[in-house]
Every structure is written in structure tokens, then in C-alpha cells.
């Protein structure tokens, strides 16, 4: 690990220098992180890759879960210079690369933004041939990961980034106030088309609701790819 970037109070990006990763990776993939205690005890969890294949370092952006076992170590204990054992890249479906085309529609809830940010960076580093829209829902402004970078995309052509804040928002907040809904998704995703590539990532309840609305709006279910974390609400 070469550097830590504090993204929010609970979330840090770990910049990793990969000594040996012959085949590279694709945006949207994840890695398995394996921690080993001195007595051989092992704990493993999966983390999405937040960087793009074109980036110098592999970036894992990790949110500290209070009842977690691996994330508190990664966020609070790991220091630059430490080594980290990874396996991957893993996953071949929730990926976007230039050849898949678009328009690209990215819907993120909370730390679900991490693999979608990788796709945005990949888009930026390649030909930018298709339009991209990102809708990113967080509880409050202080929990928005990659905030400055995401605001910066709005200055580029063919990118639109919209924020939704569900719990608290500043008086001058320009984004969507409250939970996302079907009307907002309709605006962001645009009319259903056979070309669109839709990626939805976040807590299960968020993904379930967003994907269901998109299907209801007429988007082809086979063009909607989802990645979910956490248990059902029921």
C-alpha cells in the first residue's frame, strides 16, 4: 500500500502498487482481500475496485462497517508500506468497457459508487464516445465519496452527474432531496433504448427498488446489471 486518501469520515481509498498483475482488470470487477493473523487465522472479504485499468495504482475504497472484521482493519490499521494479500480480479458480468458502448447509465447507493467510479474513470480515459449519466444517492453531503472528482465530471461534455441526499441536505443543495423515485430514474436513464447499458450498485433494498422501477419504465431487464450488498430488509 502506497497511500491512503480519506474520502469521508468512514471511508478511505487505499492506493496499492501491484508488483505482479499480468492481465490487468476491467472496470466493475472486485478483488478478494485476505488478512492473516500471526497464528494463521484468516479472514477474507470482497471489495470493488475503484480505479480504472488506465490508472497507475489499484484503488480499493473501503467503508468501515462498525460490526465488520476486515473493513475496520483496512480503514484504521493498515498503513502505507504494509503489504496486502489480494486475489483477483473477480467477476466478469458487472463490468463496463469501451467496447460495450452505451449510453452508460450508472445508479449508485452509498459505497455502491465505487465500481461505477471505476467505469467513469475508464470512460474518461478512453474515447468518451457514449454519453454517461450517474445518479448517486447518499444519506448526507459529508458521506458522498469521491465528491470533488464527481463534481469535476460535470465540466466535461457528455457527462451528467446528479446527487440525491436522503437524510440531510444544505439549503442550497441543487440535487434531489429524499430517496430516489421512479420519476427521477426516468429523467436520469432517459427513454428505454436497445443501446443503453445500465449498472446499479448499492445496498440490496436500493438496488431492488431502482432495478424494478427501471424495468417498469420499459428498460430491457437483460441490459440492467446489478451488484448488491447486505441482507434483505424483511
Amino acid at each position: 500500500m502506497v497511500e491512503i486518501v480519506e474520502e469521508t469520515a468512514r471511508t478511505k481509498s487505499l492506493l496499492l502498487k501491484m508488483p505482479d498483475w499480468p492481465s490487468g482488470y476491467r472496470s466493475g470487477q472486485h478483488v478478494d482481500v485476505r488478512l492473516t493473523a500471526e497464528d494463521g487465522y484468516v479472514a477474507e472479504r470482497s471489495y470493488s475496485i475503484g480505479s480504472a485499468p488506465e490508472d497507475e495504482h489499484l484503488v480499493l475504497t473501503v467503508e468501515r462497517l462498525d460490526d465488520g472484521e476486515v473493513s475496520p482493519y483496512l480503514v484504521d490499521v493498515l498503513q502505507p508500506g504494509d503489504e496486502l494479500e489480494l486475489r483477483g480480479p473477480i467477476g466478469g458480468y458487472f463490468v463496463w468497457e469501451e467496447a460495450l458502448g452505451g449510453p452508460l447509465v450508472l445508479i449508485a447507493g452509498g459505497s455502491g459508487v465505487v465500481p461505477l467510479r471505476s467505469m467513469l474513470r475508464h470512460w474518461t480515459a478512453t474515447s468518451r464516445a457514449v454519453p454517461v449519466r450517474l445518479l448517486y444517492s447518499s444519506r448526507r453531503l459529508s458521506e458522498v465519496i469521491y465528491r470533488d472528482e464527481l463534481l469535476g465530471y460535470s465540466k466535461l461534455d457528455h457527462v451528467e452527474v446528479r446527487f440525491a441526499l436522503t437524510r440531510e441536505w444544505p439549503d442550497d443543495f441543487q440535487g434531489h432531496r429524499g430517496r430516489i423515485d421512479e420519476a427521477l430514474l426516468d429523467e436520469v436513464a432517459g427513454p428505454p433504448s436497445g443501446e443503453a447499458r445500465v449498472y446499479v450498485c448499492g445496498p440490496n433494498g436500493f438496488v431492488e427498488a431502482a432495478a424494478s422501477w427501471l424495468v417498469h419504465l420499459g428498460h430491457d431487464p437483460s441490459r440492467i446489471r446489478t451488484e448488491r450488498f447486505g441482507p434483505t430488509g424483511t
Partner: protein
Amino acid sequence: MSPVSRGFLGRRRPAVDPSRLPPGQYVETGFPVLSAGPTPHTPLDEWSFLISGEVDEPVSWPWKDFLELPTEDITTDIHCVTKWSKFDTHWKGVRVDTLLGKVHTEAAYLTAWSDGGYTTNLAVEDVNDGKAWVAYLYDGEPLHPEHGGPARLLVPHLYFWKSAKWVRGLTLTVDDEPGFWENYGYHNHGDPWLEQRYQGD
């Protein structure tokens, strides 16, 4: 041998019986959802279950007939490739033996296919002799769509991606034909006790 992670102590859970927890897994008390796409919602009057492929005569059951098939109550541990295991889950479903018993087949493999386009491949010997079910009740309630309802395959001795959600049929095949995740780098067999997570394991 893995290098030691400096300062990592781990949070041991001594209450867990190690003989029940496959390598690399941790115990989860919730019921996480992992799905590659939107949840399909097929109305029950459009639902049927089909045994087809390399069989003498395909058989299909509409939902109401499927409910007439003999069922079993199953209490089992389940293991997801994303590292969580859940102990003592309760299901009710129809043995795959009961379904395959309605056809004559020499095929050694099958593909389970689902609403929404999902598929997974299994050897017949991994789903016969009471090793697999098509389950439609979970904890005594209709199986929730997010967890695969109205009915999902239940093959608890393999990683849970083999237990296809929203399953609608089994297609018997002569050759072993990789399914959805098996084509995206996951292991063809998926035995959690051998930690067969990904290709090459």
C-alpha cells in the same frame, strides 16, 4: 502460506463449530441477496416447471400441479461464494429425484434455467439421491422473490450460485455445459469444502 497482516487480530467467533464452516467462510445471520440483474416477477398462472433436453418425453407441471408433488422439509446450512454461510435454514420443496423420476434419461448433466435468463450447470450425481430440491417455502412462508421465489433450486452441498433462483426447468444434457457464472470465471463444480470458488481452484 499467506504473509501475516501486520496488526491484524481478527474477531474470532469461538461459538462457531468449525466442522460446519467451510474454509474461508464466515457466519452470517441475515440473508444477503446477490443477483446479477433485476428480480423477475412471473405470475403464478404463467409459471410452470419443465424437465426437458435428453429425455424420452419432456414433462412440465403448472404451479398448481407442482404443489401437488410430494414435498420434504429441509434444514440445512448454505454457503455463498462471497464468503458468508448461513446455518440451519428451513425450506420446503420437491426432491429433484421426484422430478427426474418422471422421465427416462441417460444424461449425466443438466442445466438449470431461470426466469431472467440465469443458468447454472450441474452433474446429475450432484442433484440426485436427496441432494437437491426445488424449494418454494422458506421458514414456512412463500419464498420471497428477492431470494428466488416463487421457486428456487436448492443444492446446499455446493456454493449457493448453483441453487438457481427463479428456476423454471432442468434441461438434461450429454455434455457438461457451463452456465452463467461458470462462464464468468467461477468454478465449474463449486464445492465449498474444497473451496472451489473460481476457475483454477
